[in-house]
C-alpha cells in the first residue's frame, strides 16, 4: 500500500524516477536566473505537454530600473515562448496556482521553496532552483527521489482563537526545521477533512519550514467542491492504508496561539508569554496568510477601531483583492488605519513595500523569520492573523484571546 506521494510519482520511497511535470512555474526572482540558464543550455522551444507559468510577485511593481529591466527581459521571454504570464498585481505565484489551476494527482514544480503550497489539492508539488527550472522548460521533465512520508494525524477541533497558522507552527516546532528533510508530509485524520482549502494551504505552505519536500492533503469532498466552483470536475482520492516513516499526532484542541521567535521558525512560544513586547510594524499577507478568509477575519477584529502601530495589509492575489473590495472587508481594514499594498509578496523577502529598519520589530503572518530577511537589523515574529489583529490594535504583541 502506498503513500500519496508514492501513488502520484508511481514508485516506492527511495527510488529515483524521471517524471513528466504537469505544471511548472517560476516568478520574477527565480525566473531571471532560469532564463540565463535556459540561454546557456541553448534553449529554443518549451518541452511538450506541460503547462508553464511565470508570475511577477516578488518585486511587484518593480522598485528601481535595474529590477524593471530584468523584469522586462523575462516578460518578453514569457510572451515569446507562450508561457502563461501573470504580470505585477495578479498575485503571489503559489496563490495563483491554487485558484483552480493545480488539480489532484498532478506533478507540479515551482522555482520557489514554497511551491509545496498546492499540495493542499492532492498534487505532488515541490520546489526547485533556477537551473532545474530551465531544464524543465527544455524537456518538460525532471528527476525525483520518491520521498518517505511523515503522517501528520489531525484530530479534534480548534478552541479559542487558535487557527491554522498556530497549528502549522505547532508541527514545525515538533518536527524541527530539518525534521522532515527529504521527506513529504501527509496531513491525514478526521480533522484534516474538516479543514477548509484556505486552512489546508497554510499547512502545506509551512511544510518546507520543517525541511519537507512536499506537504499533501488527499483530495476529498471539500477539494472537489472548491475546484467545481472553478470549473473543474475531479474525483476525490481515497487513502490506502500505508506505512509512514514517522507519525505525528496533533489534537487541534491542544493548539494555542503561538509566535515563532526571531530568527527560527521552529522556535515558538505561546503569544501570551510575549505579551507587551512593543512593535514597530504588523504585516498581514503573503502566500501563508494573505487569503480572503484571512483578510475577512482581520477586518472583523479591527472593524470600527484604529490600529496603534503601522500596519501593512497585502492581499495574496487580485481575485482576493477584488472580493475584499466587493464585500467591504477592505474598507474596514482601510478605515482602521492600515496601509494597503499591491497583491504580491510585499516586504516578505526584504525588498520593498514595508521593509524594516535597524532594530525594528515586526509581527508578520508570513512563514519565515530568518535574520535580516525583512530588512537589515529587523526582528520578525511570526504569528496568526488573529494575533496580528490583536497586536496591531495595541501596538504590542497581544494574545488574540486577551483582546
Amino acid at each position, binding site marked *: 500500500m502506498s503513500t500519496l506521494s508514492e501513488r502520484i510519482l508511481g514508485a516506492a520511497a527511495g527510488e529515483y524516477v524521471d517524471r513528466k511535470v504537469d505544471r511548472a512555474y517560476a516568478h520574477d526572482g527565480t525566473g531571471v536566473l532560469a532564463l540565463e540558464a535556459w540561454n546557456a543550455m541553448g534553449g529554443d522551444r518549451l518541452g511538450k505537454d506541460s503547462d508553464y507559468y511565470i508570475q511577477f510577485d516578488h518585486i511587484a511593481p518593480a522598485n528601481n530600473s535595474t529590477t524593471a529591466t530584468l523584469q522586462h527581459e523575462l516578460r518578453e521571454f514569457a510572451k515569446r515562448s507562450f508561457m502563461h504570464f501573470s504580470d505585477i498585481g495578479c498575485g503571489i505565484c503559489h496563490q495563483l496556482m491554487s485558484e483552480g489551476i493545480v488539480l489532484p494527482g498532478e506533478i507540479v514544480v515551482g522555482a520557489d521553496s514554497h511551491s509545496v503550497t498546492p499540495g493542499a489539492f492532492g498534487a505532488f508539488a515541490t520546489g526547485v532552483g533556477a*537551473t*532545474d527550472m530551465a531544464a524543465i522548460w527544455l*524537456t518538460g521533465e525532471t528527476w525525483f527521489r520518491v520521498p518517505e512520508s511523515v503522517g501528520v494525524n489531525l484530530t479534534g477541533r480548534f478552541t479559542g482563537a487558535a487557527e491554522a497558522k498556530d497549528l502549522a507552527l505547532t508541527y514545525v516546532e515538533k518536527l524541527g526545521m*530539518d525534521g522532515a528533510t527529504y521527506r513529504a508530509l501527509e496531513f491525514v485524520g478526521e480533522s484534516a477533512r474538516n479543514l477548509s482549502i484556505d486552512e489546508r494551504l497554510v499547512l502545506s505552505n509551512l511544510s518546507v519550514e520543517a525541511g519537507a519536500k512536499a506537504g499533501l492533503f488527499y483530495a476529498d469532498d471539500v477539494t472537489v467542491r472548491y475546484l467545481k466552483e472553478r470549473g473543474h470536475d475531479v474525483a476525490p482520492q481515497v487513502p490506502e492504508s500505508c506505512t509512514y516513516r514517522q507519525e505525528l499526532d496533533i489534537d487541534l484542541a491542544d493548539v494555542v496561539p503561538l509566535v515563532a521567535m526571531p530568527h527560527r521558525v521552529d522556535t515558538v512560544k505561546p503569544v501570551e508569554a510575549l505579551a507587551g513586547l512593543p512593535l514597530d510594524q504588523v504585516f498581514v499577507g503573503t502566500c501563508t496568510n494573505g487569503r480572503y478568509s484571512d483578510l475577512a477575519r482581520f477586518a472583523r477584529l479591527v472593524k470600527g477601531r484604529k490600529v496603534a502601530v503601522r500596519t501593512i495589509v497585502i492581499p495574496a492575489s487580485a481575485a482576493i483583492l477584488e472580493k475584499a473590495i466587493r464585500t467591504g472587508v477592505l474598507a474596514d481594514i482601510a478605515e482602521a488605519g492600515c496601509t494597503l499594498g499591491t497583491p504580491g509578496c510585499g516586504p516578505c523577502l526584504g525588498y520593498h513595500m514595508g521593509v524594516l529598519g535597524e532594530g525594528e520589530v515586526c509581527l508578520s503572518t508570513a512563514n519565515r523569520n530568518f535574520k535580516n530577511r525583512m530588512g*537589515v537589523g529587523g526582528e520578525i515574529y511570526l504569528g496568526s492573523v488573529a494575533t496580528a489583529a490583536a497586536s496591531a490594535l495595541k501596538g504590542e504583541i497581544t494574545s488574540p484571546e486577551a483582546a
Partner: protein
Amino acid sequence: MQGKGTAVCLPADIDTDVVIAGRYLRTKDRSIWATHVFEDLDPSLAARLKGSVIVAGKNFGCGSSREQAAIAIREAGVVAIIAPSFARIFFRNAINIGLPLIESDLTCKEGSTVVFDLSQGWVETEGKRHTIRPLSPRMSEILTAGGLVEYWRAHR
C-alpha cells in the same frame, strides 16, 4: 571527482538568506554575490573562502530556493561543502552548478587540510579517512559534466 581545500567551520542550519541576503539578489553580476556571501553571518568570511572546503553542521542551505546562494559560494572559491545533511533544494542547486556537496559527519578543525574523492567515496582530514554517502547516479553524472547546463548541452 577529487578535490582538496582548507577547512572553514560553520554552524548548523545555515539558511540561504544568510548565505546571500535578498538585498543582493536583483542583479546578474555574480561577483556581487561572491563579495557579499555570508555577510550577515560574518562580514570577514567572504575574503577567506578561496580554496576552502566548508565543513558545516546539519541542514546546510535551508530556506529559500535562491540558486544565488550556491553560486555565491562557488564564485567565492569554495571547493566543496561537507555537512551531515543539506536542505534538498540547495543540494540540487549546488550539484546543478557544479559545486560538490558531501554528506558526512566530519568534526571540523579550522584550517586543517581536507581531501576528498567522490568517485571512491571518501573524505580525509587530520590523518583520518571517512566513507561518505555516494551521490545518486544522475547527480554524479550532472556533477561530472560540470553542472546541469553542461549536462543538457551534451545530452540534447
